C-alpha cells in the first residue's frame, strides 16, 4: 500500500468539486443533488401502505383420514412434499431413547417394498430428488422435493417409505453406528453440549428431557422399529402439504391412488405428561475451554396460553430483537463481553421454553451471568418503557409478512397449525393480539414465569471458572455429560 494515511477530516468529507464532475455523467435530474443537501431523517420516511392477501391453501380430507394441504405455484418445474407425523422422541420407551429417530432414519435408508435401500438412493439421486427426514421431540417430518417430470415415480417411493419401509438390518446397523459416533463427538462441540444438557435439565423428570446414550442405542433392534412404525405411521396420524407445479385435483388423485387403501389402527398413543417446572438450580459441567457457555431458562407459556403474546414481545425486548434488545445491547455492545448472546422463546401448543444464553471468556463468566440475571429480573420489576414497547410490537408486526414468502412456507404454516391443534384463525389473530400487548401484560408474564429462584442455570466452562462460580453463587451442582 502506497497511500499515505489521510487526515481524519478528509476521510469523511467528500471533495465537492469531484462530485459535481461525476454528476454530469448521471441523469441531469440528479445533478441538483450534487450540493449534497442533508439526508432525510430515516425515521421520517413515509411508506406506501402494504396490502397482501396470502393465497388460500386448499385442505383435503381423504376417506381414510389422511389430511392434505395443497397450494399450486407454477413458477418453477418443482414439487415439494412434506409429511408431518404425530410422533417424536417423547414417545421413546424408557431405556430405548433414540428409537423414534432411528425409525425415521432407517425408513429413509433401509429400503421399501420391492426396492432395496441402495436402489431407492440410486433412483432418487439420478432424478435429483431430495428426501430428508427429521425426528423432533413431538413430530417427525419427511421432506421431499422432486422435479415435476419425475413426480409419479418419486411419489411412489415417497409413499412407500411412509407405508412400507423394509428396515433392512444392515442399514439399521449403519444408523446405530453413525448415531453412536455422533454421541462420541458431542463433547467436542461446546454449544451442542451445553444445549443438550440444558434440554435435559429444564425438562426435569419428564420423558421430554431424556437423552439418547450409547447404552440406549445399543438396545434398539429391528423389531422395535417395526413396532414403532406401526404405532405412529398411519393415515389419521399424518398431514401432508404439497406445493409447486401441480394441479390440485390431479395431485389429490395421485395421493389417493398411493395412500387411499392405507388404514389406521384403533386408538391413539397418549403423549407423556407435560414437564413440571423443576426446582431452580445452578449446574456446572466442566470442559477445558477458554470461553464459558451459559444458558439460563424456565418453562414458559404455551401457544394456547394468553400469555403467549406478551411473551413474544418480552423475548424480543430481552434478547431476540436484534442489537437493541437488552441483553445484546448490554453484554455485547456496551461491555464487549460476547459475540453470541441473546434470548430464545420457543412455544408449542402445550408448553414452551424461554431462556437466555451467552458465550464469554472464562474470566468474565461471573460478571456476565450477574448482568443477565439482572436484566431478566428487571422484566418483572419495571414496566417496559412505552417507546421500547412500541418499537418491539412494530417490528414483530412489520416482519410478519415474512411468514408468507413461498407457497411451501404458506402451506406448511397451515399444516403445522393443525398438527399442533391450534385454532384455525391462529395466524389471522396473531397480529392484532401482538398489537394489544401492554407493558403490564409483559411485567405480569415475567412475574409469573421468570421467578429467579426457579431458574435453571447451566455453565459449561473450565475448572477455574467453576471455582469462581462457586465462590460467587455459593450453591452449585456439578454434572457430568451423559453419552
Amino acid at each position: 500500500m502506497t497511500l499515505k494515511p489521510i487526515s481524519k477530516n478528509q476521510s469523511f468529507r467528500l471533495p465537492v468539486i469531484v462530485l459535481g464532475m461525476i454528476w454530469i455523467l448521471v441523469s441531469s435530474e440528479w445533478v441538483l443533488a450534487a450540493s449534497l443537501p442533508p439526508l432525510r431523517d430515516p425515521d421520517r420516511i413515509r411508506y406506501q401502505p402494504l396490502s397482501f392477501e396470502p393465497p388460500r391453501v386448499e385442505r383435503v380430507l381423504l376417506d381414510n383420514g389422511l389430511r392434505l394441504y395443497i397450494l399450486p405455484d407454477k413458477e418453477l418445474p418443482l414439487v415439494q412434499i412434506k409429511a408431518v407425523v404425530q410422533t417424536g422422541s417423547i414417545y421413546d420407551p424408557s431405556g430405548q431413547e433414540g428409537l423414534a429417530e432411528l425409525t425415521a432414519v432407517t425408513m429413509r435408508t433401509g429400503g421399501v417394498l420391492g426396492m432395496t435401500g441402495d436402489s431407492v438412493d440410486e433412483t432418487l439421486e439420478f432424478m435429483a430428488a431430495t428426501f430428508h427426514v427429521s425426528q423432533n421431540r413431538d413430530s417427525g417430518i419427511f421432506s421431499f422435493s422432486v422435479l415435476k417430470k419425475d413426480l409419479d415415480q418419486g411419489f411412489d417411493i415417497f409413499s412407500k417409505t411412509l407405508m412400507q419401509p423394509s428396515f433392512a438390518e444392515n442399514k439399521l446397523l449403519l444408523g446405530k453406528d453413525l448415531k453412536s459416533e455422533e454421541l462420541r463427538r458431542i463433547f467436542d462441540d461446546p454449544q451442542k453440549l451445553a444445549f443438550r444438557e440444558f434440554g435435559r435439565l429444564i425438562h426435569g423428570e419428564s420423558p421430554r428431557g431424556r437423552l439418547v446414550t450409547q447404552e440406549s442405542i445399543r438396545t434398539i433392534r429391528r423389531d422395535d422399529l417395526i413396532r414403532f412404525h406401526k404405532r405412529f405411521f398411519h393415515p389419521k396420524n399424518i398431514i401432508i402439504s404439497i406445493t409447486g407445479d401441480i394441479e390440485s385435483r390431479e395431485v389429490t388423485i395421485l395421493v389417493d391412488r398411493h395412500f387411499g387403501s392405507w388404514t389406521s389402527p384403533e386408538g391413539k398413543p397418549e403423549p407423556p405428561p407435560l414437564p413440571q417446572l423443576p426446582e431452580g438450580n445452578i449446574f456446572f459441567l466442566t470442559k477445558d475451554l477458554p470461553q464459558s457457555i451459559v444458558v439460563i431458562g424456565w418453562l414458559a407459556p404455551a401457544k394456547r396460553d394468553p400469555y403467549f403474546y406478551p411473551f413474544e414481545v418480552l423475548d424480543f425486548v430481552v434478547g431476540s430483537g436484534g442489537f437493541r434488545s437488552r441483553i445484546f445491547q448490554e453484554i455485547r455492545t456496551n461491555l464487549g463481553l460476547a459475540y453470541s448472546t441473546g434470548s430464545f422463546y420457543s412455544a408449542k401448543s402445550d408448553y414452551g421454553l424461554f431462556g437466555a444464553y451467552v458465550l464469554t471468556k472464562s474470566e468474565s463468566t461471573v460478571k456476565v451471568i450477574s448482568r443477565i440475571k439482572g436484566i431478566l429480573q428487571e422484566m418483572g420489576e419495571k414496566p417496559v418503557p412505552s417507546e421500547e414497547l412500541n418499537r418491539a410490537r412494530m417490528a414483530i408486526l412489520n416482519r410478519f409478512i415474512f411468514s408468507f414468502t413461498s407457497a411451501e412456507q404458506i402451506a406448511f404454516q397451515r399444516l403445522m397449525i393443525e398438527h399442533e391443534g391450534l385454532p384455525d384463525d391462529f395466524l389471522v389473530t396473531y397480529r392484532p393480539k401482538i398489537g394489544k400487548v401492554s407493558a403490564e401484560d409483559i411485567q405480569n408474564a415475567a412475574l409469573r414465569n421468570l421467578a429467579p429462584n426457579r431458574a435453571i442455570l447451566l455453565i459449561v466452562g473450565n475448572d477455574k471458572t467453576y471455582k469462581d462460580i462457586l465462590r460467587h453463587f455459593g450453591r452449585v451442582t456439578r454434572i457430568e455429560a451423559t453419552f
Partner: protein
Amino acid sequence: MKSSFFFSLHRQLRRFPLIDTARLFSLAVLLLLLFPSLILSQGLGERVQRFTLGNGLRLLTLERKLSPTISIYIRYRAGAVDEADGKTGTAHLLEHMMFKGTQTIGTRDYLREEKIIRRIEKIGEALDHEKAKGKEAAPAALARLADQLKTLQNEQRRFSISNEIDRLYTENGAVGLNASTGQDLTTYQVSIPANRIELWARIESDRMVYPVFREFYNERDVVMEERRQRSESNPEGKLLEEYLAVAFLAHPYRRPILGWPSDMSYLDIAYMERYFRTTHAPNNTVIAVVGDIQPSTVLKIVEKYFGRLTRRRLASPFITEEPRQSGERRVEVSFSAEPQMIMGYHKPPPPAFMDHVFDVIESILTRGRTSRLFKALVEEKRLAESIQAVNGLPGARYPNQFVLFATPRHPHGCIELERAIDQEIERLKQERVPDRELEKVKNQIRADFIRSLNSNAGLAGMLSYYETLLGDFHYLIDYADTIERITPEEILQAARTYLIKENRTVAMLVKKPLNSIQR
C-alpha cells in the same frame, strides 16, 4: 413467528453477525453447484436487469412477485486478502464497525461527538502502544490511559445513540439483516417489506461513505470473543485455520479472516479508515435487488441515494502469488477432541474451465448417499462418520483449493481414512467415470440450480456474487452449458494433473489427553 422448537437454538446462536467463515464457505459451495437448465437460464438472463451509475456502482434487479418482500445484497470486491500484513482482521472488524451508525444516524450532535471520537482514538492508540511493550509497560501509564479512555467513552455516550442502524431496520420489519467478510468480498444483506426500500437506500448509501466508528475498542473485544468461539473452542475451526496456514505459503489466503490474535489485539482506527476508503467505494460495489419491485423505481431510488457518492481511487495492492507447491505438506494439530482431517489440492479458480470440472468431481466424490466416498468410506468400509468435498476454498479471486473434510468413525483413525480416500482418488485417475454416473451428477447440479431460484435472498446472493467476483453475473447463466460439455476424459485429465501428492496438504487433528477431566 417461530415454528421450530428447541432444536433451532443452535442456529439462533450462530445467527448474529458477522463473519461466518463456515457459512460463507457453504455459500460458496452452493454457488458453485448451481447451474441453469436451458429454458430457465434464458428466462433468468432476460429477467435480470443491469445498470451502471456514473460513479461506477453496478445494480442488478430481478422482479419476483410471490410476496411483497425484497432481498438486497451489497457486495464490495474487497476482503481479508486486501489487508496489509500485520493488520489481519481489519476487513472483518470493519464489517462490524459498519453497524455503528453514520454522521447522521446514531448521533445527537455529530460535531461535538466527533471531537470526542478523535480523542478516544488518540488515547486508545497510546494505550495500545504502552500495552505492546509487554513486561516493559509502565503500570501507572496503563492505568492512567485506561482511565482516560473510559472517561471519554462515557462522555461520548452523551452524544451517540447505540445500534441505530439495527434499530431502524428491525422496527421496519427487516429480517436476515447480516453481513459477512470473506477472503475475497465483503457482503451486507437484508430482506425488507417491499415498501421499505427507501429506508434501505438511506442507510446503506450513508454508511458507504460516512460511517462513524463508534465503540471501536469494545467491538475489538467482541471480535476476540468471536475468535474464542469459532477457533479456540472449536476443533473444526482450529484445524482449518492451521490447514490453510500451511497449504498456502505466501498468498494471503494463508491468513485467517478473523485475523491472528496479536494483530487483532492491536487493530487501529487509522489503518481501518485507510482500508475503508480504498475498498468501500461505489466503483467497487455491486447491489442486487430481488423481489416485489419495479426495476425502474429501484433504479430511481438507487440513483437518488447512491448517485451522490463519488468514485474513488481503489487500492490496487500487490498480492503475493502462491509459488508452485513442490511436495506434500503435512500438519498435525493437538486438540482435546475426536480426530478429524482435511486434505486439499491447489487448482485454478473460476471462471477457468478446470474449476467447472472440479465442481463435477466434488459431486462425484461426496454429493449424496450414492457418491463414491460416502458409499465406500461411510457405508461399505465403515471407516468414516462423515466425508465432504468442497471445491473453491478459501476464496475464488485467486488460485484456490479443492478440499476434503473427513471424520473417522471410532476405532478407526485418520491414517486409515487417508488411505481409503487415496484409493478413490486413484480410481478417478485410472478409470473413466461411467456415463450414467456423470449424467446423474449433471442432473443434480441442474436441479440444484432450479431449487436455488426459489428464494429472493438466494437469487440476490448468487447474482451479486458472480457480478462482483467475475465482473459478470452471466457466468451463472452459461454455467449449464459448460457443465453439460464436460467429458470423462477431462475428468481423468484434471485428476491426473491436480490430485497428486506433490500438490497436496494434509492436516490431522490428534486427540490431546484431557487434563484431569473425566469424560
